[in-house]
């Protein structure tokens, strides 16, 4: 008889080792034995002698409120929560024993992360075969690896932004370059709003370079770049698109007088002699300007071509002036004579 009992009902010591979160309940649903770990969850509150359904709420399957319901839920997965604080979400399974009662084995499932800190659990609280410790190890190791990857991603993103900025910047003047100009212009055209483009070519710059050297030329370009930024609004884009060629994109331009004034200011500023090593570098600027009305269909290439034609006309008129593009300029550009010495005359 004892042999039969021992086979069908493992003794308490065996269960404590194999299933430290087990409970034994009798036919009335009273807890008559609790494994050491499940008892550790409520250290001041002995589980033995209490009704199972008073201590545990079965959340799935639903509707298990009486002991008779509970018996029907044998051998299937149960989702339970333990009454009291701190709350514990548990998974379990119940099997009938030989005495008309049952053994319920419980586990934390995914709430293990919370449980180990809530109840200060240690390796000794888990069965030797339980994967809980391995799961905790993995979560911690994977999180550390993920954090390292996240930091790398942030650094790479920062480097990417810096590289992009560099790719769109003219290193000598700090202005945007041709790539920046193309991008901004494309955006303006797509938006369909009114905007203007000024193509600015320095007059007599080649003379500075030839007579005073490249250092003087570089200095002049930097001073001129600063002047253009100062004479335009923050929302305007100033780009250096060639050796001594600049382009300004001006969004939201409502009338041509504004463009007249901005262009004149830029020319006036550029004509201020720039001292370099005791010598004044005197240059000027010719400007070709296109004023695009809102939602006019046009391509980037065409806008720049129009600005170029207008610039050509300014050069033709004797430099140091601004010309606005109009279709008739195109004809005179095609038939006209080239301006004398585009690269400038000697000072």
């Amino acid at each position, binding site marked *: 008889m004892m042999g039969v009992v021992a086979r069908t009902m493992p003794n308490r010591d065996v269960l404590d080792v194999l299933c430290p979160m087990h409970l034994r309940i009798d036919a009335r649903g009273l807890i008559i034995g609790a494994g050491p770990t499940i008892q550790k969850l409520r250290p001041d509150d002995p589980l033995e002698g209490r009704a199972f359904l008073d201590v545990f709420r079965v959340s799935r399957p639903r509707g298990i409120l009486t002991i008779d319901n509970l018996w029907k839920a044998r051998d299937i997965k149960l989702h339970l929560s333990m009454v009291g604080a701190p709350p514990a979400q548990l998974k379990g399974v119940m099997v009938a024993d030989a005495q008309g009662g049952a053994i319920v084995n419980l586990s934390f499932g995914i709430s293990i992360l919370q449980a180990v*800190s809530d109840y200060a659990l240690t390796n000794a609280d888990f069965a030797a075969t339980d994967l809980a410790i391995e799961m*905790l*190890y*993995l979560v*911690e190791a994977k999180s550390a690896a993920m954090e*390292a*990857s996240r930091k790398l991603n942030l650094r790479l993103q920062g480097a990417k932004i810096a590289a992009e900025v560099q790719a769109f910047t003219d290193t000598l003047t700090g202005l945007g370059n041709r790539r920046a100009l193309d991008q901004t212009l494309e955006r303006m055209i797509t938006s369909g709003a009114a905007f203007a483009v000024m193509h600015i070519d320095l007059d007599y710059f080649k003379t500075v370079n030839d007579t005073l050297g490249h250092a003087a030329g570089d200095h002049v370009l930097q001073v001129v770049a600063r002047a253009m930024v100062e004479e335009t609004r923050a929302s305007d884009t100033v780009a250096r698109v060639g050796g001594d060629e600049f382009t300004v994109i001006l969004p939201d331009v409502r009338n041509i007088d504004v463009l007249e004034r901005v262009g004149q200011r830029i020319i006036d500023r550029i004509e201020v002699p720039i001292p370099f090593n005791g010598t004044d570098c005197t240059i000027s600027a010719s400007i070709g300007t296109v004023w695009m009305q809102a939602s006019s269909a046009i391509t980037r290439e065409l806008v720049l071509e129009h600005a170029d034609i207008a610039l050509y006309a300014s050069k033709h008129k004797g430099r140091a002036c601004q010309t606005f593009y109009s279709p008739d300029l195109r004809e005179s550009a095609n038939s006209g004579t080239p301006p004398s010495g585009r690269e400038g005359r000697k000072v």
Partner: protein
Amino acid sequence: MHGLILRSIQNYMTDSYGRTAWLQAVAQAVPDHPDFEAMLSYNDTLAPAVLDAMGAVLNRPRSEVMEDIGTYLVSHPNTEAVRRLLRFGGMNFEDFLHSLDDMPDRARMAVSDLHLPAIELHEHDEGRYSLICDSPLSDFGYLMMGVLRVMADDYGALAMLDHAGHTGGRETVSIQLIERDYADGRSFNLGAWAS
């Protein structure tokens, strides 16, 4: 070689001797890599070159530098994660020693392309062990000695360690566990990381 290994070597140098010492060493070994990224892979030749340069800068033999790195890995606050992950290996120092065989597999479970040197624990009579290390990095056994010394303290065990030499690219560390519960050791709270 995995960036985690190179980055650990870098962190050891900067945390212990400062950024200048690191830059000095790395400039000798790999001028174009002042910093290693933990989650990238690098050429296998870099680690030995960097370790040699570090030895030169610090004027210390490789074996001492390696043992110091081992100590650093499991005792410095910046590398607490390593100590914690190792402590998952066992409840006491003996348990921990037996878990070392699994260390490369455990590491790969976390970071699939991280290949740690193969290590193998042999148990002789009571309390006597040999740890066989098979690593492409020479003097890796010394690094393990540094790790084991700190971990013994961590578990509160008293152990004697000895580098028992190289044979055919393998190194042997002999371990004599004198007392398992010699001191209190440091606490290890399973949930400390999550909370």
